[in-house]
């Protein structure tokens, strides 16, 4: 269960008087226990402390993923197979149904049989093994959420046209947590190819985390043999439409004096590394490691060690990249071998949004006041599961409210937020029975 924030409510008979908010005349250095609440005097400055508890089983403010393991290449598509119909997705939620009379197949939802996409012509191999005319092959992402289908139209003598379509088999939420992409097509591309079999399984592959489809476009006329057109199709990256954003490279081994590249994906699926394989005969060979964020920004990441900029370079071939198995792998959380540096920071797990609490002083009234208040700022903290911290608000001058001489005090209200997992309803929905809020409404006389 994700982290859940809880501010201390008051006792059942006086819910307005939370002991989880205390005013203090001096700074507290202990975050687990603090001194008693005091009576403020107008004109003096006071710190305010709010007790924040995590009642979830995950930390509030965790890194989003800390799955360790070696970074891996994608699982390539298979284009030479004879499926047993119907073909079920890895998650069992969608399937391919074949219509022998038409030699067509379509993608359906298992639960209700509704058509997600298709039909496409199948046209498997001929008994002699030759491949001519329309043919299709496909692969689901490992989690079954995405489905990519390729149709190729092979001309006699080699070459031909190809079409690639990618579908979401059910609605999903982008990594930013705000956009829900509906079921249906999320990417398509087409082209011509000079390859003898037009396009094949080695041109495509899903990464293990199901966050990216790696697509190496088949060669076109006059394309140098040393050139690779690499496109990453990344359905979780932020975008203003439902189309999966892409990132493309034109890679030429001759230009960079390489024998090739390793394309590897992190276990969490948030990062992609382009690792050059330098040609040992060329000292000027390109050796720089490049890492791309394939979950949110689709931008190259500046690599860091201890948060200082570094530029790891390949020393020898047979490189490896791995996310390490340590507790909370952020700093130096990626291990490199056969490179100029052995460790770099793991940006997938280095920084996160903490819990935030907002505090305000409210003119004393019997029920939470929404109009007459003064903001007292925001404070942040990371809270481990089943732990509490007294978080501090800055020392601010206390000025008793003007008006009736007897109205001598403010009450204190706190609003805790643990977005994105446990967002606050906001001040406009203030409710003292809600664990995101607390109020200390007490007057000393």
């Amino acid at each position, binding site marked *: 269960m994700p982290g859940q924030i809880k501010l201390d409510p008051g006792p059942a008979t*006086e819910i307005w008087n939370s002991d989880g908010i205390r005013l203090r005349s001096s700074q507290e250095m202990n975050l*687990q226990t603090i001194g008693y609440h005091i009576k403020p005097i107008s004109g003096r400055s006071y710190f305010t402390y709010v007790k924040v508890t995590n009642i979830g089983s995950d930390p509030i403010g965790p890194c989003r993923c800390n799955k360790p393991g070696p970074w891996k290449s994608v699982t390539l598509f298979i284009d030479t197979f004879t499926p047993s119909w119907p073909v079920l997705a890895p998650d069992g939620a969608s399937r391919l149904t074949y219509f022998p009379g038409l030699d067509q197949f379509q993608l359906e939802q298992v639960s209700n049989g509704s058509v997600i996409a298709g039909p496409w012509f199948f046209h498997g191999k001929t008994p002699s093994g030759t491949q001519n005319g329309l043919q299709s092959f496909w692969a689901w992402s490992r989690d079954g959420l995405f489905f990519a289908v390729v149709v190729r139209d092979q001309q006699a003598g080699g070459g031909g046209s190809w079409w690639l379509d990618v579908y979401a088999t059910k609605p999903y939420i982008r990594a930013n947590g705000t956009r829900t992409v509906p079921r249906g097509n999320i990417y398509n591309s087409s082209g011509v190819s000079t390859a003898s079999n037009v396009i094949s399984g080695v041109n495509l592959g899903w990464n293990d985390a199901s966050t990216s489809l790696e697509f190496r476009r088949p060669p076109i006329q006059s394309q140098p043999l040393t050139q690779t057109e690499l496109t990453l199709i990344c359905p979780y990256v932020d975008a203003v439409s439902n189309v999966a954003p892409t990132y493309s490279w034109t890679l030429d081994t001759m230009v960079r004096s390489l024998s090739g590249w390793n394309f590897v994906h992190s276990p969490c699926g948030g990062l992609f590394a382009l690792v050059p394989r330098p040609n040992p005969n060329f000292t000027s060979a390109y050796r720089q490691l490049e890492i791309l964020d394939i979950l949110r920004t689709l931008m190259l990441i500046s690599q860091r060690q201890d*948060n200082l900029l570094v530029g790891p370079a390949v020393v020898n071939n047979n490189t490896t990249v791995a996310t390490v198995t340590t507790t909370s*792998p952020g700093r130096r959380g990626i291990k490199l071998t056969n490179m100029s540096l052995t460790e770099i920071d793991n940006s997938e797990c*280095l920084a996160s949004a903490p819990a935030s609490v907002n505090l305000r002083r409210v003119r004393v009234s*019997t029920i939470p006041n929404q109009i007459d208040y003064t903001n007292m700022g925001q404070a*942040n903290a990371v809270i481990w599961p089943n732990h509490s911290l007294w978080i501090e608000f800055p020392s601010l001058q206390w000025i008793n409210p003007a008006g009736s001489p007897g109205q001598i005090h403010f009450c204190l209200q706190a609003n805790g937020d643990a977005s994105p997992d446990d967002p606050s309803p906001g001040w406009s929905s203030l409710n*003292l029975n809600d664990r995101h809020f607390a109020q200390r409404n*007490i*007057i000393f006389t």
Partner: protein
Amino acid sequence: MTTTYRVVDIVVPNRSSNKVKVTVAISPTDPAMLEGIEMEDNKLLKILSYGLTQDICTRVERVRTQEKLNLQIDEFQDVLVRAIITVQEPSKRTRARAAFQITDTRNGTVAGGVTIICSSPQFPTDLPSAAGPTNPCPLFIAAELTCVDPGADPRLTVGQPGIIDTTKPQDLVVLIENGGPKELTNALVCLEHTSDSNVLAVPLAWHIGTIEPGGRFWATWEVDARTALPGNYEATFVAQCDDYEPVRLSAKFAIRPPNW
């Protein structure tokens, strides 16, 4: 024995677009049951009378009060209610307290309230802090705060150390070091607040993870001091790690007036 009057005016609001009927009541409660309120060596204050009134003009000793007021409040209106508690002051050197709950009941349910503590002598305005952590996380701030351009290498300081530029957003750099003798795990640092400087900071926690003795990490936070107020301040950070208690770290910084 001296008699004194404790007077508290409280707003009873109606923020709705309909008239509401509200019952406001006052009742004594045991001050020893109030959490987080220092009550050591205190006796119970002798209460001669207590009650509520809407009359805020008459002298308190002449006002007739009731334990319960039934109010009808017009839409978007407030009503001011005065609580008057008559106290017999204890003898000198005696500390005594009493507590009352004022409840606001609407449609048969308690919608809110206020707690009143009467104290003689005056309730403390200063009480000792709790003892510091006995086993503090050994992470500490190893250098003065600096600033760099957004996203730049934390070593490429711009401007003077300890001063946040008010002309453009920057990254605040905080050098964190493991000052202990052991390797720390699950180390993390979070910017708690930037005092009352009005420097805006993007909330962020750094999951440093494993850090060896003497190991360093240059934590950064995006800050914007364009609306900050000139002055000297202290930002606070919370550092945590396995097997140790969390600690609050402070670091000074200054905001200079424009054209300083």
